[in-house]
């Protein structure tokens, strides 16, 4: 049996999910409990196009939703439970729940940071170009 534990951030996610959809949060906890006996329940995070895991650490996700949600609802599973298996090679001792939350929120957090970084890079590039232009004009 692996030890399953939540990080503080995952607990905060759970608190938010309970406020939003208690049944889905319950399902998330039920799945988290299942990970004790089956740490490999989730699918590995990977680049599907070349089937390479994205990182060395064994990070996995489980798609979930409230159990009574219509099978034809789109998207069928709105939430994700994301976890890391430690150690990532050999027999799993600990399953660390890293996130349990709404999919768009997870996207937003990551994409906002990426967008900010891209904006900063663009500003830096423009600044360099301006400096370069001024330098060229100077006699």
């Amino acid at each position, binding site marked *: 049996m692996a*030890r*399953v*534990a*939540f*990080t*503080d*951030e995952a*607990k905060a996610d*759970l*608190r938010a999910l*309970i406020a939003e959809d208690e049944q889905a*949060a*319950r399902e998330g*906890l*039920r799945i*988290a*409990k299942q*990970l*004790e006996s089956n740490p490999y329940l989730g699918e590995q*995070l*990977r*680049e*599907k*196009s070349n089937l390479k895991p*994205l*990182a060395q*650490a064994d*990070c996995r*996700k489980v798609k979930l939703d409230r159990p009574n949600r219509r099978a034809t609802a789109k998207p069928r599973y709105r939430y*994700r439970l*994301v976890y*890391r298996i430690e150690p990532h090679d050999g027999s799993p001792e600990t399953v*660390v*729940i*890293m*996130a349990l939350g709404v*999919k768009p929120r*997870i*996207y937003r*957090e*990551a*994409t906002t*940071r*990426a967008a900010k970084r891209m904006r900063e890079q663009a500003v830096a590039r423009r600044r360099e170009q301006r400096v370069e232009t001024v330098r060229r004009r100077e006699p």
Partner: protein
Amino acid sequence: MGRGTGKAKMVFTTSQARTALPGLARTAAKQSKPSKSLRDNAVEIQPRGEERSAYLVPEVDLQEAERRIEELEEELEDIALLRLIEQRTLAESGNLTTVDDVIRQFGFHDLLDAHAA
């Protein structure tokens, strides 16, 4: 299926398309393998005076495009999730709470009872 660029191979006016429609639909329906691009087996129908046009696309190509979009969305999700994990790992306090304690803290005791039974 890759991203299509340029025009479809066949371009019809609406009058031409009206006459040819049964044959075009039959040809499209007979396609069993998806093409490389959505435009490869598509027929473009250009109404007179309109800037944009309509496309008649074989079902097999549409299905393949939908499958590919789903696959890419999944890949994007995995990348976003991994970035999130990286960020959280860097900022991790190191505090861990066992799943049983979390279940108790949030008042879902019945989950522990059900698991014990």
